[in-house]
C-alpha cells in the first residue's frame, strides 16, 4: 500500500469511526440531570458529567460526527474547487488563466478564520455551514499548487509530443495533467485535515451564529470555559479530542520516506 493510499485509508477509518460515534452514544448527550452534575469518572460515565449532569463521553462522541462531516465537506470543496481552478488556469493560460489565479491569491490573502467567521455569522453556524465556509476559505492553495503542477506537466517532453501529435486540451488534461497533479494534491489534502479540525473548533468556540447547545468540541470549550478552575476536566476532554484528532490525522497522513509520494516529491 502506498503512503497516499495508507493515509487515505487511515482518514477514511477515522471518519467512519467518528460517524459511528455520532450515531450511537451510551447516554442521551442532551439529557439534563442536575442531581448528578459534575459526577466524577465512573463506569457509567467514563468521562464524568458536566455542570448540567450531561454525560461527557456521549457529548464528545456526538461532536466527533460533526467534526467528521466538516472534514469531508472541506476536503471535497477545497480539493475539488482548487483543483478545477488551478488546472483550468494552467490549461487556458492568458488573461482568463491569470484572472483565475489572481482570485485564488485573493482567497489566500484573506485570513481563513475571518472569511469563515463572516460566512457563518451571516448564515448561522452548523457543521454544514462551517464546512462550506472553511472550504470556500481554503481552496486557494490547492488552486496555486494545481496550477504550478499543470504548467510543469505541460512542459514535459511526452506531453509536448502528445500535443504535437494533435491531442487536444481535454485529452492532455485527462491523460497527463490530472494523474500528475492528483498525487501531490491529495498529499496536501491529507495534511490539511488536521488544520480543518482546529479551524472548526475555533469557529465553534467563537460561537458566532452557533447553536450553542450543540456538543461541538469547540463549542464545549466555550460553554465550559467558566469551569476552568472548578471542574477542569470539562475542558480537558474536548481539548484532548481536538488535539489528538489533529495529531492523529497529521501522523497518519504525513508522507513517509519510501512512499511513492515522498519519492515523487524528492525527484521533483
Amino acid at each position, binding site marked *: 500500500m502506498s503512503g497516499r493510499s495508507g493515509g487515505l485509508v487511515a482518514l477514511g477509518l477515522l471518519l467512519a469511526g467518528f460517524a459511528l460515534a455520532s450515531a450511537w452514544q451510551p447516554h442521551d448527550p442532551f439529557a439534563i440531570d442536575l442531581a448528578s452534575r459534575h459526577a466524577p469518572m465512573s463506569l457509567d460515565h467514563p468521562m464524568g458529567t458536566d455542570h*448540567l449532569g450531561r454525560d461527557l463521553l456521549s457529548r464528545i462522541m456526538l461532536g466527533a460526527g460533526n467534526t467528521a462531516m466538516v472534514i469531508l465537506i472541506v476536503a471535497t470543496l477545497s480539493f475539488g474547487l482548487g483543483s478545477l481552478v488551478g488546472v483550468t488556469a494552467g490549461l487556458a493560460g492568458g488573461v482568463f488563466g491569470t484572472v483565475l489565479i489572481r482570485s485564488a491569491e485573493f482567497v489566500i490573502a484573506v485570513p481563513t478564520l475571518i472569511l469563515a467567521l463572516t460566512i457563518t455569522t451571516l448564515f448561522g453556524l452548523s457543521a454544514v455551514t462551517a464546512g462550506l465556509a472553511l472550504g470556500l476559505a481554503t481552496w486557494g492553495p490547492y488552486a496555486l499548487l494545481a496550477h504550478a503542477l499543470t504548467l510543469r506537466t505541460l512542459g514535459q517532453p511526452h506531453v509536448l509530443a502528445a500535443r504535437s501529435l494533435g491531442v487536444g486540451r481535454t485529452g492532455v488534461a485527462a491523460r497527463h495533467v490530472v494523474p500528475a497533479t492528483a498525487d501531490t494534491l491529495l498529499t496536501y489534502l491529507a495534511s490539511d485535515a488536521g488544520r480543518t479540525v482546529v479551524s472548526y473548533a475555533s469557529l465553534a468556540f467563537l460561537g*458566532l451564529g452557533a447553536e*450553542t447547545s450543540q456538543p461541538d468540541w469547540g463549542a464545549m470549550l*466555550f460553554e465550559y470555559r467558566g469551569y476552568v478552575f472548578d471542574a477542569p476536566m470539562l475542558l480537558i476532554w474536548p481539548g484532548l479530542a481536538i488535539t489528538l484528532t489533529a495529531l492523529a490525522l497529521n501522523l497518519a497522513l504525513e508522507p513517509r520516506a519510501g512512499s511513492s509520494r515522498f519519492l515523487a516529491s524528492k525527484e521533483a
Partner: protein
Amino acid sequence: MSFIVFSRRCLLAVAGALALLPTLAVAQDGDTMPIRVVSYFAASTLDPHPGGSGWFLQSHGVAETLFWVDDDLTIQPKLATGAEPDGDAWVVSLRPDIRFSDGSPMDAEAVATALSSLNALSPRATGSTGAITATAIDPLRVRIETERPVPVMSAVLAEFPLIMFKPVDDTWIYTGPYVVAEFEPSSRLSLEPNPHYWGQVPAAPVDLRRLQDPQSRVLAIQAGEADFSFNLPPSSLERLAADGLIARSVVTTKTEMLFMNLTRPPLDDQRVRQAIALGIDREMLVDAVGGGLPATSLFHPDFDFAPNEPLPYDPIRAAALLDEAGWALGDDGLRRRDGEVMSLLVRHTTRQPDAITMAPVLQAQLQALGVQVEVRGYESTQPVLDAGEFDLIYFNSNTVPSGDGAFILDQWLRADGPRNHFGYDSAEFEDLMDRLGETREPAARNALLLDISALLEEEVPVTPLFAVEFHMALTPQLADYAAHPSDYFIVRPDMGLVD
C-alpha cells in the same frame, strides 16, 4: 547544601523586604491604602449625558440622583428632601447641605441647569417624562414641568440618567462620596474621598478596575490583587470561601425575561404563549444557574406591587393548550399543525455565562412539550431585536431601576414603547397603563400593577423567569460591606477597611 539553603532564605528575605517597600513608603506618607475593587464594568466617560453614564458614575460612588431606591427597595430622598405636586408640575425641595466636589453648593439653580442639560443632550433621561423644563423657585426649591404627566416624580428622579452634575471647564463634577482622581476609560478609575461630601466621608480611596472575564475576577481576589470582586460565577464561591475570603450573594432587581415574538406564528396565538410559559420549570433554571429566585412577575418579589406566588409550572396544562391550539403531538414527539412541525428559534447573548447555561435547560423543557427548538447565541441584543430574528429571546434587565414598576412596562410593552420589538398591542394593557399614569396614590398604584402582572400572565408577551442573583467575594477587612440589591451602588461611602 547548607550554603544553598542559607542563600535561598536570604534571597526570599530580600525579595520579601523589597515587596514591602512600597507599603512602607505609603505608610510613611500617612496615606491610606486604597480599597481595590474589580468589577465587570467601568465608566467609559465622565460625561453625564450618554445613555449608561449615570449608571456607571452612580455605581462608582461618583454621582448621585435626587432620590434613590434604598437597600430595602423603597424610594427615598437623597439630594432632595421631597417632591410635591403643583398642578401638573412638581416642586422638588433640596437638602441645604449638598456641595459639589469643588465645594460649591448644589442649589436649585445648579439642579435646574443639570436637568436642562440632560433634557437637551440625553434622550434616555427624558424617557419617562418627555421634555423636562426645570426652573429654580428659590435656592432650595425647583419646579419641574414635564411633557407627559408624571404620577410619581420621586421615582423619575431616582432614574440613573438623572444624576446631578456641574460643568466645570471641559469636564463635569458631581456630589458623590468619591472624586475621580485618575481615569482610564472603560478600564480603571482611581477614586479619592470627596471632602465636601454631605454624608459620611469615605475612609479610604478606591482603585476600581474592570475585568470583563468572570474567571479573571475570581483570580484577582484569590491572588490578593483585589479586596472586593463583584459578579462572580457561583461555582467559584466555595473555593473562595475555603481561601478565607467572604463570599456573598444578593438577589437583585434584575429579572431574566423570556420575550415572545407576537408578529408571526406560532407565538401569535395566545394559547401557545401560555403553554410556553406554563412549560418552563423556573426552579430548575435557578438550580442550573446556581442562584436567583423563581419569578412571580417582572418585578423582584419583595416589591409591594409584585405578586407573592411564583409563576406556575404545569406541563400538563401546557400540553392541553397546545392541543387546543391545533398542535397535535406526533409519534416522533413533535407537534404538528397542518403538517407543519412546531418550531421555535430561541436567541440569547453569549456574553453572560448564565445565559449559556440556561440555553440547553430551556431547550430541553420546550422540547418536552413537543416543540422543535433551535437555540442560537448572539453578541449584541439590539440588532437581533431590530431585525426581529427570533421567536423567543431572553435577557435580563433591571425592571425597577427607580423603585416604580411603570418604567419597564412603558419602555418594553407599551404599543408605542421604544423597546417594544415584540408586536404586543393590547387594548386592556394600554387602558391599565393609562390609568397607572394618572394614579398617584401608592396603594392604588400597587393594585393597578398587580392587575397588570395578572394580565401579562394571561396575554404573555413576556414570561419572567427568575430574579438574578449576583455573587461577590470580599477580603475579611470588608466584612461590613452591605450589598445593594442591584449593580447601581457597588462602591459605597461606608465601604471601609475594618481592623
